[in-house]
């Protein structure tokens, strides 16, 4: 098995057959319990939300004052609210709104923050110093106070939520990926990649980012839940999704007035949020496990 003997042997066609022996992403994912459980929960929630027009049976905003505050029945599976709107329909359509807002509000902070943090850790210097001071300033404010102030300033509704999160939420990703990048650059593989003549953008995007991003992915999943909760809070203050559009947060706060006599009005959307949150967390853990080849 000496190097000399091996060097003498010519490369045969056998060496060029498609590389096997490594299970595909799907096969590895199927063996990651957290991923499977999370994907199942989120898949179910997504499916229900997508099928809302088919299985919703009623318009989510149609009022029927003859059947207000009813319990579950054959006509209204989960009952009705104080305006006689079908809770099952509102739950499905609310899921559409909340998932969409949650995912979209996180996309920019996740992408921009992770890239910026990795870049700062990689390059250091004045860029790092300036960005980290900005991060400190943003983090110095209580999160909700900042979001509420920004939404109030920009205007309520989904627009305000997207902009407020875009402006504030990136700092979390920047901080975590920056520290991951600092750990990475102290390892020789970054030096090896640079020493091999690879360009800096390539070292950043192909080598550093895949190593720094796994924590950010995990956080992004719980961040979606955080956005949904923020929408709930904003809805409470009249700054969230504007009525009569359905949204889980608004459903919970509307039901609050009837909590002693008709508790399901708040409990049902609460359960939906919990299922979504648990599903996203499991999905994040599963993705992180898959990202790290162990």
């Amino acid at each position, binding site marked *: 098995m000496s*190097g000399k003997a091996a060097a003498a042997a010519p490369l045969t066609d056998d060496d060029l057959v498609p590389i096997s022996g490594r299970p595909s992403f799907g096969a590895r994912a199927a063996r990651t319990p957290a991923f499977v459980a999370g994907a199942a929960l989120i898949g179910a929630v997504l499916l229900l939300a997508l099928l809302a027009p088919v299985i919703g049976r009623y318009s989510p905003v149609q009022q029927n004052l003859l059947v207000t505050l009813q319990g579950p029945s054959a006509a209204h599976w989960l009952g009705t609210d104080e305006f006689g709107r079908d809770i099952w329909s509102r739950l499905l359509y609310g899921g559409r709104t909340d998932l969409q807002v949650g995912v979209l509000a996180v996309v920019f902070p996740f992408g921009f923050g992770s890239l910026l943090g990795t870049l700062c850790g990689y390059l250091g210097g004045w860029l790092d110093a300036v960005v980290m001071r900005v991060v400190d300033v943003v983090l110095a404010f209580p999160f909700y106070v900042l979001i509420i102030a920004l939404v109030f300033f920009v205007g309520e509704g989904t627009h305000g939520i997207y902009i407020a999160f875009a402006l504030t939420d990136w700092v979390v990703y920047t901080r975590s990926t920056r520290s991951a990048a600092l750990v990475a650059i102290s390892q020789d593989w970054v030096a090896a990649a640079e*020493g091999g003549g690879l360009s800096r953008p390539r070292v950043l995007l192909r080598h550093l980012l*895949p190593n720094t991003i796994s924590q950010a992915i995990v956080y992004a999943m719980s961040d979606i839940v955080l956005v949904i909760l923020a929408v709930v809070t904003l809805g409470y203050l009249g700054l969230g999704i504007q009525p009569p559009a359905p949204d889980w947060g608004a459903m919970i706060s509307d039901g609050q007035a009837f909590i002693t006599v008709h508790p399901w009005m708040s409990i049902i959307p609460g359960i939906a949020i919990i299922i979504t949150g648990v599903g996203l967390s499991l999905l994040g853990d599963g993705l992180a496990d898959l990202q790290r080849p162990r």
Partner: protein
Amino acid sequence: MSARLSALLEVSDLTVEVRRHHRTFRAVDGVSLSLPAGGSLGIVGESGSGKSMTLRAVMDLLPRTARVRAGTVQVAGQPVAVGGKRSSADRRRHRLAMVFQDALSALDPVMTVGAQVAEAPRRVAGLSARAARERALELLRTVGIPDPARRYASYPHELSGGLRQRVMIAIALSTDPAVLLCDEPTTALDVTIQAQILALLQDLRGANGLGLVFVTHDLGVVGQICDEIAVMYAGRIVETGPVGEVLAAPRHPYTAALLASAIDVDSAGPLPQAIPGAVPDPLRLPPGCPFQPRCPLAQPDCAAGPVPLHNIGPGHVAPGRSTACLHDDALAAGPAGAGPAGAGPAGPGHG
């Protein structure tokens, strides 16, 4: 053998400063090295003597706390930027490659080893994806990895230490280097694997005219695969010369002490002798010769001022030998404190 006219790699007066706790010290102090084409130079010394820092400065891959204070590096007669100014285009042109000590931390953990070997052929040499893959398989085969097609898709943590080291050598070779800088490439390996890796490096040198710089603390390894040796202590070169000459008749007491501390399996000679004292704190180097507090030959003049490297006068010694000792004649006459050279090098290998 000393082809100093057409040096492949020429390092002149390299000085590297490292900042630690708001104070700076010279981790590398005025080091000059010369490597002829196809030559093999060993740099030996204890931990902290500045060997690795020298290599990283030559590669321009210093950590952020270190910077090049002075010195130049030339490859094949052309000056190469040092001190963080080297662009990736410079790196491609000058063809220096490095093999790191710890292969696990020198391989990207989330990229398959095949992709890492194929990366430079694909992105730097501009081969097609398929050609780059074939080149990577060929390199994996060259470095003696059995069944390369199967290993191609492995992640670094799935390979043994010896295989990882081979992969790293394959990555270094993937850039088609003229000089391979090896930073203790066998230290983390067990002895049989170490012998295989050394044989591989020796083969590569013989085959391609590749220049080797080999940093190690193992004098036996240097004796096996190097032509020339440079002994470093406290950031300075204290003795240089052809390997056989230096190991057989050291002209610096530190070299002699290193030899005496080496474990010798062959002979039933005296037990290895530890060097008394400790490596000096780089922030508080002793005056004059840095080895003087631990030296059996030390005289008052050793602490008087800096002791530069000087040629050993004509006599029975080969040309190209120099030492940074004022009293090396005492070693030539008959070793006082240090025992006779233990590690008998079986002469430098072919090439």
